[in-house]
């Protein structure tokens, strides 16, 4: 067996390093593409060798790193991380293809950063040691910061700093929580360890419920701010909007907040001082994000900003599903992460294409684009429909699972959140109608459709959206296996 | 302890006398000497011409360099004194001799440095 987990980090990282030293745009893009394809190959290899019927860690590797602190370099893949790795590995080659023909300065850094980002995100997904986890967690900041800061829109400086400081503070607070966990468990067992699974398992043995709450809350704060959900989201619209298209897509692929929720917070949740309260809080945050995101999206004039807020709304489903805390609602939340990554990639790519061709993103300045850009319109339609949860597309599966099964535990919240479906449908269709259909806005001049590479890359993703809408099992199976494992911990406690 | 203080009591007496003597002498002079006033008597002497400007002018920086060199080497001597007094008849070990040579040797580097840099030359 190949050491797939390590290779998944190393291959993009090495390609990124080489890409940084390329001279021309062609070399950079080519190398980037090669790197992402290699990663995709590795991922497929891992996927094919993956046993989705068990919740245990597979492809496990561990090397001693700092023994005096109990730090090991240990990585592995399970049903929580596999779909997200898959998502990353699938989207990034197409992202590179999508931006193949764009002209920008310093292409070597651009593609290098994309690959670095991929490595960092996969690193977070495969890490089984808190220190390794945190290192990759922080590493994701750097490429995104640069992405926004170099190639972003007009307010890129402001947006990049806001994003950087905001999420960095959140991760530091999470780090404090990790420290608390580490020392409390050290005291408990007498041996230092940074192993995620062991620390999570030790969590329930801590005596002081105050300590447990403090640790849990500070860790989950980091995840929620990264996700983000309602009160911690203020970096999101700026960063998503100001980022270049590839940056926005990378933001979408940054599923580490939700991943942390499933990997670390949910198994700990039943053992906190007052799980009921926390579940209700999470449900509240999720619901609020759904409704708030949808409402604000409705008001947006900027197409990209609207998509950003709709992304916030979608993230609410992740939290709501997690808070539902039964196997199917949690796997719904996981699936939401996966499908959201695909859908939003299409949407941001479309928005990017519209901006580059027409020079504007303001919905009111567009109009009738379907006549001049039929291919784009079709693809964007697929994205929008999936985003609003049309049955037969992947978005529907996720939302359906979340709504249906969260209702068991959190009926009130779900009923409230159902409101948002209407609004979501409303703003999506309204935006579509204004931007793509109707009379062509002559001011936009003579514009042409997206190029064939873009069609190809967006088309493949759209096809995947449709495919997973009909047959979610390839990823849903492993999600359910793991969700059951997570939830069974809580079931024992009667939550 | 008291022996040390005792040996300084005469010093105190002498110091007192030394402090008193000049003022007393000058007091005597004041009463013995004649007095006559003339403007020219109270100017400073500048080879007979009228003094110009103040005498409190800046002086050559070389004085400073000498002062520093002096301080350095005088302190060296300061450390040598206690060592010198115990050199004989106190069973001093060869290591103390070696250490003192090392000390002087290190200072010698400084000395050569000063010399080569011209700090010991009056007119550069």
């Amino acid at each position, binding site marked *: 067996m190949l050491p797939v987990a390590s290779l998944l980090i190393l291959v993009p990282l090495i390609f990124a390093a080489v890409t940084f030293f390329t001279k021309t745009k062609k070399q950079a893009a080519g190398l980037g593409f090669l790197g992402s394809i290699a990663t995709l190959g590795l991922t497929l290899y891992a996927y094919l060798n993956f046993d989705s019927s068990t919740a245990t860690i597979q492809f496990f590797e561990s090397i001693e790193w700092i023994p005096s602190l109990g730090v090991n370099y240990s990585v592995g893949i399970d049903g929580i991380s596999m779909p997200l790795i898959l998502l990353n590995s699938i989207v990034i080659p197409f992202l590179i293809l999508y931006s193949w023909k764009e002209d920008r300065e310093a292409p070597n850094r651009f593609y290098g950063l994309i690959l670095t980002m991929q490595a960092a995100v996969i690193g977070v997904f495969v890490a089984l040691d808190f220190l390794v986890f945190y290192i990759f967690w922080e590493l994701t900041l750097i490429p995104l910061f640069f992405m926004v800061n170099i190639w972003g829109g007009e307010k890129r400086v402001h947006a990049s700093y806001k994003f950087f400081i905001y999420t960095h503070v959140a991760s530091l607070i999470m780090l404090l929580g990790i420290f608390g966990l580490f020392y409390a468990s050290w005291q408990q067992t007498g041996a230092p360890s940074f192993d995620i699974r062991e620390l999570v398992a030790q969590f329930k043995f801590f005596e002081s419920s105050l300590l447990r709450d403090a640790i849990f809350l500070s860790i989950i704060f980091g995840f929620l701010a990264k996700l983000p959900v309602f009160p911690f989201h203020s970096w999101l619209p700026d960063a998503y909007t100001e980022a270049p298209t590839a940056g926005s897509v990378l933001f979408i692929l940054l599923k580490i907040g939700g991943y942390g929720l499933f990997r670390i917070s949910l198994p700990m949740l039943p053992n906190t001082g007052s799980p009921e309260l926390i579940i209700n809080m999470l449900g509240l945050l999720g619901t609020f994000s759904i409704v708030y995101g949808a409402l604000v999206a409705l008001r947006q004039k900027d197409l990209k900003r609207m998509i950003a807020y709709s992304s916030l709304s979608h993230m609410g489903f992740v939290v709501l599903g997690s808070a539902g805390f039964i196997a199917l609602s949690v796997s719904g939340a996981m699936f939401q992460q996966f499908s959201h990554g695909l859908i939003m990639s299409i949407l941001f790519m479309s928005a990017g294409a519209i901006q580059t061709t027409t020079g504007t993103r303001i919905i009111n300045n567009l109009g009738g684009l379907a006549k001049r850009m039929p291919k784009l319109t079709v693809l964007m339609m697929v994205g929008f429909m999936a985003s609003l949860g049309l049955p037969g597309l992947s978005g529907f599966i996720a939302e359906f699972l979340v709504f249906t099964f969260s209702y068991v535990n959190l009926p009130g919240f779900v009923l409230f959140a159902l409101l948002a479906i209407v609004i979501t449908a409303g703003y999506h269709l309204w935006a579509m109608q204004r931007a793509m259909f109707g009379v062509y806005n002559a001011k936009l001049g003579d514009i042409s459709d997206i190029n064939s590479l873009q069609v190809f890359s967006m088309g493949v993703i759209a096809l995947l959206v449709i495919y997973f809408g009909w047959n979610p099992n390839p990823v849903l199976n492993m999600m359910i296996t793991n969700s059951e494992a997570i939830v069974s911990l809580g079931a024992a406690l009667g939550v | *302890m008291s022996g040390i203080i005792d040996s300084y009591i005469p010093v105190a007496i002498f110091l007192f006398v030394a402090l008193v003597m000049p003022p007393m002498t000058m007091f005597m002079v004041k009463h013995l000497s004649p007095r006559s006033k003339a403007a020219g008597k109270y100017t400073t002497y500048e080879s007979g011409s009228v003094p110009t400007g103040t005498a409190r002018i800046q002086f050559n*920086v070389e004085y*400073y360099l000498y002062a*520093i060199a002096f*301080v*350095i080497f*005088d*302190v060296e001597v*300061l*450390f040598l004194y*206690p060592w010198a007094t115990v050199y004989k008849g106190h069973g001093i070990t060869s290591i103390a001799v070696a250490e003192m040579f090392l000390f002087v040797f290190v200072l010698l580097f400084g000395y050569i440095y000063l010399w080569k840099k011209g700090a010991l030359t009056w007119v550069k």
Partner: protein
Amino acid sequence: MIPLGFYLGLAALLFSIGLYGVMTHKNGIRMIMCIELMLNSANLNLVAFSSYTNTLDGQVFAMFSIALAAAEAAVGFAIFMAIYRMHDNINLDELNILRW
């Protein structure tokens, strides 16, 4: 025997005078003089303690500190001299290129 308190009192007084001087004077030379005063008050302390505890460490210490004070003054004067050549005065108040 003179009580230890007298030495300590004198030393404290000298030290305070030195400290006051350092804080109020802006002239470099005066500051060095005040610092020397502070160092010497510490030496006085050391020697007084040495005689009252019947240990020699204090006297040895005082000797070293005298030597160091001399070296310190040498370095300080060198710096002030260079400043004087540039600014024609050594008022600390008037040296304010570097701030905030």
